[in-house]
């Protein structure tokens, strides 16, 4: 069934056809222009919000007291994870407006977004490295904690110490760590092996009742324990480098 326009309307359309076509084109082009403007504004506010939110999250995480170790590390890790989740899709433009980037101002917006994204990715990478390091730090500390003992040891407990140190050396050797933690692991392995060797020398001299070797090995045992602080020194060096990377990333973020 064909709809019939009233005669008056038909006449109006035929006499104003050109005006109606032009008006239609103006409405479509204008609508597209407005929609494009809104899309680009949304694009800009999205990356700025992401940027500001991350800075806020970092401030919040840093404000967590250090005695809440796990909570603080988790907060830093969450920031790194959030960045990783968004980094691939950030700064993508809708195909319907992406072609407009030949306009200088829009191109600048896209560059600003990419700069913000790169800064956030650097921050995420530095936080990721730091939190991975902290996990290794805790794992190694947990192993070494088994070495704490009472200050005076009767000979009946020496053998147990040898076994403890053997197990510590084995556990450290089998520890899978991040590359940043490798120097600390290597140092810890060297020091604990030295302590284990010293204990073995003490036990050998003790079994042989060789006073000279016993006193010598006892002194070496003391010296080998003294080298323990070099593990903490190695760790402090690594942490310093990791935190310099976080500071550099944060500086870029603020500039």
């Amino acid at each position, binding site marked *: 069934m064909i709809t019939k326009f009233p005669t008056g309307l038909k006449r109006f359309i035929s006499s104003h056809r050109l005006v109606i076509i032009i008006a239609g084109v103006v409405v479509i082009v204008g609508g597209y222009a407005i929609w494009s403007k809104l899309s680009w504004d949304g694009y800009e506010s999205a990356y700025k919000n992401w940027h500001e939110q991350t800075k806020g999250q970092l401030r919040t995480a840093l404000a967590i007291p250090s005695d809440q170790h796990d909570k603080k*590390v988790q907060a830093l890790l969450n920031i790194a994870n959030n960045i990783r989740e968004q980094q691939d899709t950030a700064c993508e433009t809708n195909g319907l407006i992406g072609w407009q980037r030949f306009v200088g101002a829009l191109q600048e917006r896209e560059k600003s977004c990419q700069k913000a994204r790169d800064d956030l990715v650097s921050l995420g990478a530095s936080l990721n490295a730091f939190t991975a390091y902290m996990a290794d730090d805790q794992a190694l500390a947990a192993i070494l904690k088994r070495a704490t003992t009472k200050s005076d040891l009767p000979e009946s407990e020496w053998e147990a110490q040898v076994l403890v140190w053997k197990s510590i050396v084995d556990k450290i050797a089998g520890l899978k760590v991040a590359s940043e933690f490798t120097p600390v692991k290597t140092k810890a392995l060297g020091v604990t092996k030295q302590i284990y060797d010293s204990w073995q020398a003490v036990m050998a001299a003790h079994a042989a009742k060789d006073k000279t070797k016993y006193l010598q090995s006892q*002194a070496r045992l003391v010296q080998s324990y003294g080298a323990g602080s070099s593990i903490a020194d190695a760790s402090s060096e690594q942490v310093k480098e990791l935190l310099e990377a976080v500071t550099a990333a944060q500086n870029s973020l603020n500039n």
Partner: protein
Amino acid sequence: MSVRRLAGYIIVGLMLVGVGSTSLIVSASEKQEIASLASLQTLPKTVAEIKAPNLQEPEWLKQQNAAEAAARRVPQGGSGIRVVTYSVTTRGVITANLAEFKSQANATLNDQRGWARMGIAFREVASGGNFTLVLSEASQLPSFSSGCGVEYSCRAGRYVIINQDRWLGATPSWNQAGGSLRDYRHMVVNHETGHWLGHDHAECGGAGQPAPVMQQQSISLQGCIFNPWPIASELWSTQLGIRL
């Protein structure tokens, strides 16, 4: 230029300075917060708790010692390795990390670049010992002896006293020369322990040479280069009867 306009410029200038300094403060505090993340490490605390146990004298050794009355008092082996004991104490208000102080001082004393080369093992004991290592608030140094000043570390009798200010910040000349804090700590512990071992101050042996550890390197290098460890000619001790 009218007075009103001049006042306007001054106000705007002050506002800009205010905004600038606020942002600097914020940036510095954020840097400090990031630096404070280092305290999340568990290792330094754990390592500081691991100390060499005191091995109770085994029965067979007691019997041997009873038979060798002369050897009973000095725990010295035929190899010449001798155990020197020391206790650690503090005086005044201490803000430095005491566990780190104990741990680093022990590491320095037993380092094979240091006095340990003379065949000595230094063992920390809970009290007494052959000497007392003190971490002291700077203002408390003169309370040990009139010869001790607030500026530097000191040795008075059995007390080997480390000035907390120097421990935390070395000296301007050391820092200006690019010396690390850890090396300064090695140097100051070795230097003051050297006094206890029987050493007086030494002079630079010649321009460009490593300074003797007993030289007052915090005050003047006399052309020598910084050196935190005793040089070969310093490996003797009247206190322990060790000769060159």
